[in-house]
Structure formats: C-alpha cells, structure tokens
C-alpha cells in the first residue's frame, strides 16, 4: 500500500519536474530558433548583396529588386541616439529628484507616474505624435530652431528644409519620452543602493545636497546608470509603432533633422506584407536579423552592467 502510494508520488514528482523544466528550456530554445530562422531566411540577401555590402549600400529599390540596408541602419542610429541624448539627462534628473529631493510621501506616487509612461502602448505614442506633436513641431518648434540654431555655420545644415513635423526630430522626441521611464527606474534603483552612512558622512562634513549627489551618489552608482542608458538604447532600437507614424518611410540618407527617414523596425512594419519577391523578403529578414543581434548585444551589455552594479 505505502510503497504504491510513494511510487505514484515519485511518478507525479518526476512529471512535474519534467514539465516545469521543459517550460523553462523553451526560453533558450526559442532564442536559438529565432536566430537560426532569421539567418536562414536572410541567406538569399546575404548571397546577393553581401554581409557588409548590404549594410553600406543605400539603394532600396523594390522595382529593380536591389536592396541595401544603409538608409534604415542610418535612420535607426540617428533616431535612437538623438532620443538617448534627450532622454538620458532627463531620466537621470528624474531619478535624482525621486531619490534625493522629492518629499517622502510623494515618492512612490511620483515613481508610479513616471513608470506609467512605460505602460502606455507604443501605438498611442505614435498616434499622439502624428496628431498632436507633429503639428506643434512644424508650426512652432522647428521654425524657431531654424531661425536660431539654423543660422549657425555647419550646425545649421541639420536644420535645413521645410519643417513638416513628420521627420527625424519628431520621431526622436517621441522615442525619448518612451525611453525615459526605463532609464529613470534603473537609475533610481542604483541611487538607492548608495550606502546611507556614506551620504550621511558627506553631509556631516558640510557638503550641500548637490555636492553629495555629484560627489557621492553619482560616482557610486555610475555603472548602474550606464546600464540603464544602454537598456534604454536597447529598448529604443526596436521600437516600431511610435516611430512608424511620424518618420515618413523614406529610404534616403538625409542630413537634416527635418527630413523624412526610416528605421529598421519601421521598414519591417511598412513593407513586410507588401514584399512580393523572395529577395525583397529576404532583405527584410536580414534587417530583422541585424536588429535582433544588435538589440541582443545592447541588452546583454545592460544586464552585465546591472549585475556588476549590484555587487
């Protein structure tokens, strides 16, 4: 009797073990499968245009079936770097405010409010960008920039053209708003790790609040903040919908921030279902592969930084 019961326990325990283990192993399995499938699908494009050749060619011509990813790669790099330039200082400022300045009672509400920015779906950002931000950009902000910074030598080149609001600048602005909560929450967590007695002893020798932040908190949590910024970059690189609404899907490399452009994700979103030849779709898969690999590298780096900052 007893041993029959225990045998059934053992069997059920084994079943549970295998079931849970199989579910967990799905994660690495899918990652490997995803990489393999993307590589396999990219092979025709790789063969025809070359591993590097594809990335440096600016031709994107579905009619002649000649494809190069340089314009999409360029667009992605410009939009995400600009977004990070806007987002990183703001996010760090927010984290400083939450951890050092904000009254205790408001701390958690404020954190939640900032984190809510991350839960708004990206399609809402895109639509808001198209209907609200783009008109404001084209009628107020961009003409203002042209009148001021646009007059400067060299710098002026990036503010050339008719400000229509559907452009690199608007896309970067929206992307920066979306990226802020990711960086801010990582930075906040790193700031919180600064030992209390370090902060107190700095105050003890008469440092001002800003001096404590600058000389103690920021240096102490530097690695964590870098990790947060890279995480933001990793997130921004793959963002599709928020950017797709306001970038114009143009496969040309433009210097002006008032020009239309395209990123890897927006190219995929706009053209995947329209691709009518094998080489076209393979080129799109190759873009997806580039995106997959680069975001994976960025996110692993962020993860590495965050694990180092916790030690």
């Amino acid at each position, binding site marked *: 009797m007893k041993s029959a019961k225990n045998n059934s326990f*053992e069997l*059920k*325990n084994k*079943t*549970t*073990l295998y079931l849970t*283990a199989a*579910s*967990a192993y*799905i*994660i*690495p399995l899918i*990652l490997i*499968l*995803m990489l393999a*499938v*993307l590589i396999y*699908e990219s092979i025709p494009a790789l063969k025809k245009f070359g591993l590097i050749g594809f990335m440096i060619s600016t031709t994107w011509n579905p009619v002649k079936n000649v494809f190069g990813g340089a314009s999409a790669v360029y667009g992605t790099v410009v939009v995400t770097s600009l977004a990070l330039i806007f987002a990183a200082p703001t*996010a760090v*400022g*927010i984290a400083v405010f939450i951890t*050092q*300045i904000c009254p205790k009672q408001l701390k958690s509400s*404020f954190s*939640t409010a*900032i984190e*809510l*920015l991350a*839960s*708004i*779906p990206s*399609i*809402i*950002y*895109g*639509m*808001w960008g*198209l*209907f*609200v931000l783009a008109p404001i950009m084209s009628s107020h902000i961009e003409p203002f920039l042209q009148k001021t910074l646009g007059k400067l030598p060299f710098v002026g080149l990036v503010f050339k053209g008719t400000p229509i609001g559907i452009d690199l600048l608007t896309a970067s602005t929206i992307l920066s*708003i979306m990226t*802020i909560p990711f960086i801010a929450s990582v930075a906040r967590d790193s700031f919180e790790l600064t030992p209390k007695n370090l902060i107190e002893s700095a105050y003890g020798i008469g440092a001002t*609040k*800003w001096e404590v932040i*600058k000389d103690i908190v920021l240096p102490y949590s530097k690695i964590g903040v870098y990790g947060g910024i890279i995480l933001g970059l990793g*997130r921004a690189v*793959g963002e*599709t*919908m928020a950017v797709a*609404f306001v970038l114009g899907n143009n496969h040309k490399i433009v210097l002006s921030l008032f020009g239309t452009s395209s990123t890897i*994700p927006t190219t*995929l*979103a706009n053209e*995947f279902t329209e691709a009518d030849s094998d080489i076209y779709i393979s080129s799109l898969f190759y873009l*997806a592969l580039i995106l*997959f690999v680069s975001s*994976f590298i960025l*996110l*692993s780096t962020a*993860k590495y930084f965050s694990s180092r900052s916790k030690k």
Partner: protein
Amino acid sequence: MTNLKKRKITNIFFLTISTLTAFLGLFWLVMILGDLFIQGASSINWKLFVDDFAPPGFGDGGLRPAFVGQLIIVSTAFIIGIPIGLLGGTFIAEYGRNSKTAKLISTLSDLAGSIPSIVVGTFIYAVIVRTTGHFSAFSGSLALALIMIPVMLKTTENMLNLVPWQLREAAFALGAPYYKVIFQIVYKSASVGLLTGAVLSVARIAGETAPLLFTSLNNTFFSLNITKPMASLTVTIYRYAMGPYNDWHKLAWAGSFVITVFILLATLISRFIVNRRYKN
C-alpha cells in the same frame, strides 16, 4: 564667504534643474493622457462596441470586430503563455533553485522579454504564416504569447522566491512530495503575486501592434475564426489613424482611449495590490 555663497547657488541651481526634469516627465504624461482622454472620451458611444466597420467615408461605423478580435487574440495568447511562464518560473525558483542552468535561463528570459516585438513578428511569420500558407489570428496569439512568457516567468520566479523556504521544509517534514509542496503550499502562499503577475503580463501585450502586423494581419469583416486573419484593436487603430478620413481618426482615438484605460487600470491595480501585500 563668497565660496560658500557660490556653493549654495550651485546647489540651488542643480536641484532646480533636477526638479524641472521631473516635472518635464510628468508634463509628458499629463499631456499624452490628457489629449487621449479629451479626444477619446468624446468619441466613445455605445455604437463603438456594437457596430461593425463602415466602408471608408461612410462614417458612423463601430469597432466591434476589432474589440472581439483583440479579445480572442489576447485570450489565446494568455492560454498559451501564462502556463508556460508559470511552470518555467517554477522550475527556476524550485527544482532548479541555485543551479547554474536556472540562473542562465532566468537571465536569457530577461533578454528574450526585451527583444523587439517586431522581430518576434517576423519570426512567427517565417515559422507559422509561411508554413501554413496564410495569415491567422492564432499566429498573432503565438507571437504575443512569446512576448508574454518571459514576463510571467520572471514574476513567478520573484514571487516564489518570496515564499519563506522554511514553509517548504515544514511540508517536507510532514512527508509531502515536492510537487505537492509546490502546488498546495507554495502556489497558495504566492497566489496574490502570481495573479497580479498574470494581469501584468496581459497589460504588457494588450497594446502590442507590431507583432500582429504580419501574423493576425487584419480583416474588414467580423470574424471568430482563429485560423483566418482577424482584426485586432491595435492594428485597426494604426490603419484608421494613418487613413485620410476624419471619422476614422475619431474611431482611432476612441479605440486608443479604451485600450489605454484598460492597460493603465490593470497596471495600477496590480501594483497597488502587490505593494500592499508585500510591503513588509
């Protein structure tokens, strides 16, 4: 004395800047939600939920096929994604606890959760849509499930880790086998956390558009067949917002309003519950 004055001014200057950035963040939130509420709430009426799509330019249509489609696609994703995430997280927190493999999978899962969702879409397109030969709501659900699994896995891992180890030992000491300890003791102790984890996973995918663009695609007619293309709320919003008609724009705002309210409420309520439950 002047030095001290300078330091004090610098102090105030930078603290002000930091405060300003905080209000900039808040400003964006209020501005986006404000516009959404003003534009969206004014376009909400009962027709939105009961009427089918109207042909372009004929106004007065509703979004019923999109709402129903969204519900079907997300629920199917839920049915696939939640159990896998739950069981996978259970392996990492229980059977695999402290093992190197479990730690590696947990890290990989974090990375998998942040893969651009559009890439997940292309993957499902290659694996499912290509092989079956057609777009389908089911392939869309599968794409969403892949995004959901890492979220649920992580929450499960964290929530199970919060259950005191001694509680498991107490059950073992009574002669309970591990699977009973997990299902009867650990899950029950972590039930609130697991439930909110499931809600947060839904909130995470409910607004996704990119992975549906070339999986579930779209459908201009009402459909309940998950092996066929199906309209989803998010893809419909995209199509309507990019379209040239004012009626379409109104409907897009209304749909956005509904989906955002749903996601924000789900997020806020689960955070509130978790904070209260795990405060100490």
